[in-house]
């Protein structure tokens, strides 16, 4: 089998880690047929029964629980402080006032600096982009090596990494701080990026290993017979088939790294504090009168990037959750 004929298998490889999606149409058809016979009992009765009303009641309450905090957040950010003090937290703003948003973005204060949350935004961009790319590259390489190449001790390496994924950061942090200080890298952009790559390695390795373990071994063997080496097979055979898992990995890492607080707090240094750290400083360490509208605007701005990823990626986001969970 040549490398060329091997490639079209790609779409099937995807289903290994992400199989659940494919089951949906089948199930829908099956239950539709079942319904012809039993309209009142089972999973989807046709007319309104008491159970059905209760069901929608529960849905409504649950939806309110999840959506109201976001609604309140947006409403608060659009109000003026007198409005906030006098009115209900659920009341609509009297006018569409973006002052708090502009202030949050460009002149909110963290301690003595009043340059707004945009400083943290750009720091987070500078941290997230290289960290995401490097950790995906590292995880893909290691995941591929662990799936297809038999190397002595690889099992131990993987076991230690897995264990590392679950351990609290507190057990690693202090010696890392000391080590980075010794080589003069502590509190630099480079430092926080390296730390993100190190702590991203377990989950990235896991999802790539699971993905490659789902690909047919014959594919690899054929490439071997054709004389492919470690990197050639990786680059020419595996990577072209890896698009789905690369997207999943990117979604996971962008969200994780953007949402990180503790690593940024410890390793990034004053000049590179990510947006989450800056946001917490803006909201939780203001002296004098608190500006809740500004706080909420800053909070929305900080959540905006992962939320955008979530809404744009749709089902891929769910796949990301499942990819880390499905065993190889």
């Amino acid at each position: 089998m040549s490398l060329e004929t091997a490639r079209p298998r790609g779409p099937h490889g995807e289903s290994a880690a992400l199989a659940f999606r494919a089951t949906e149409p089948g199930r829908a058809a099956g239950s539709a047929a079942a319904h012809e016979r039993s309209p009142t009992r089972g999973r989807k009765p046709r007319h309104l029964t008491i159970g059905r009303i209760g069901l929608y009641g529960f849905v409504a309450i649950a939806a309110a629980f999840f959506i109201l905090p976001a609604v309140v957040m947006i409403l608060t950010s659009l109000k003026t402080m007198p409005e906030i003090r006098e009115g209900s937290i659920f009341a609509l703003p009297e006018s569409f006032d973006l002052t708090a948003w502009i202030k949050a973005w460009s002149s909110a204060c963290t301690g003595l600096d009043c340059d707004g949350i945009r400083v943290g935004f750009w720091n987070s961009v500078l941290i997230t982009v290289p960290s995401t790319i490097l950790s995906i590259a590292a995880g893909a390489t290691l995941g591929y090596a662990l799936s297809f190449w038999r190397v002595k001790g690889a099992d131990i390496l993987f076991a230690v990494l897995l264990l590392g994924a679950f351990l609290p950061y507190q057990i690693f942090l202090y010696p890392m701080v000391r080590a980075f200080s010794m080589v003069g890298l502590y509190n630099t952009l480079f430092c926080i990026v390296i730390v993100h790559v190190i702590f991203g390695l377990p989950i990235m390795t896991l999802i790539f290993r699971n993905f490659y373990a789902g690909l047919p071994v014959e594919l690899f063997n054929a490439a071997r017979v054709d004389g492919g080496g470690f990197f050639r097979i990786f680059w020419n055979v595996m990577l072209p088939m890896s698009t789905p898992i690369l997207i999943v990995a990117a979604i996971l890492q962008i969200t994780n790294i953007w949402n990180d607080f503790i690593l940024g707090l410890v390793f990034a240094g004053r000049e590179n504090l990510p947006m989450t750290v800056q946001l917490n400083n803006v909201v939780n360490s203001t002296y004098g009168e608190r500006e809740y509208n500004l706080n909420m605007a800053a909070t929305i701005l900080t959540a905006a990037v992962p939320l955008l990823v979530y809404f744009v990626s749709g089902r891929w986001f769910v796949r990301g959750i499942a990819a880390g969970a499905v065993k190889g």
Partner: protein
Amino acid sequence: MTAPRKRLSTATLVLLPFWAVVIAAYIGTMLWTVQISFTASKLLPVDDYVGFAQYERLFSSTRWIVSMQNAVIFGVLFITGALVLGFLLAVVLDQRVRFENTLRTIFLYPYAMSFIVTGLIWQWLMNPGLGIQKTVRDWGFESFSFAWAVDRDMALYALVLAGLWQASGLVMALMLAGLRGVDEEIWKASRIDGIPAWRVYLFVVVPMLRPLIVTAVVLLSISVVKAFDLVVALTNGGPGISSDMPAKFVMDNLFTRQNIGLATAAATVMLITVAAVLVPWIYAEYFRKTRKGAAA
């Protein structure tokens, strides 16, 4: 015989930097932390070994004991709560309700946001003077109390509530994927036998979803152990130490109180606790089964 040898060496070489990272950044730092915990280190690590003195100090510290108790209470309530709520949401979405996609998006979106954002949103909702409490009291319910984050008795439950809001969608997404995989024949059979749907869910479907439930428990447990961001953003461990957590105890003693001997002892206790649960699980999950996909 030259080909296999060469092949081995390329892959082995590629693995070398990863070994370096794992040995230095994971194993090395871990051992170093444990080593510091047996010294009298305060601001900087020193080689003055004091045996288990830091551990004795640790377990005679009220703050540490409260932190551990809080972690257990928070962990139990948060994990059970998220499992129950997440499963209910998944079952509801599995009933062919209208607007299923919209609802799923609504249930899951908080999971995309950080614990810092989650904490700050709920801090505002629980604001004693201007939050939901004030609004509901203005409606005439004078005794309504929702200022949990600043209430010594309720601060821990404020963390649970905010945590549930953020993470239940995760369980919902996992469970829904599992429910969609349940064979339609099971539903047909149960209808013919006249078994109510809730019993089928509880006694047939839940056991079938066991692997997914285990996964969800593991993922949720990780957030419990790592519970630092949410605490910092919502209650900052207060009022007093009423909502303190082990992770925060370690961070405070490491970076603000210059008590690194005590902090590393606490971190070591966290490590032992987590490892005691994890090692058997990882072994069962990843190494007992025959490995597939590895070529010779």
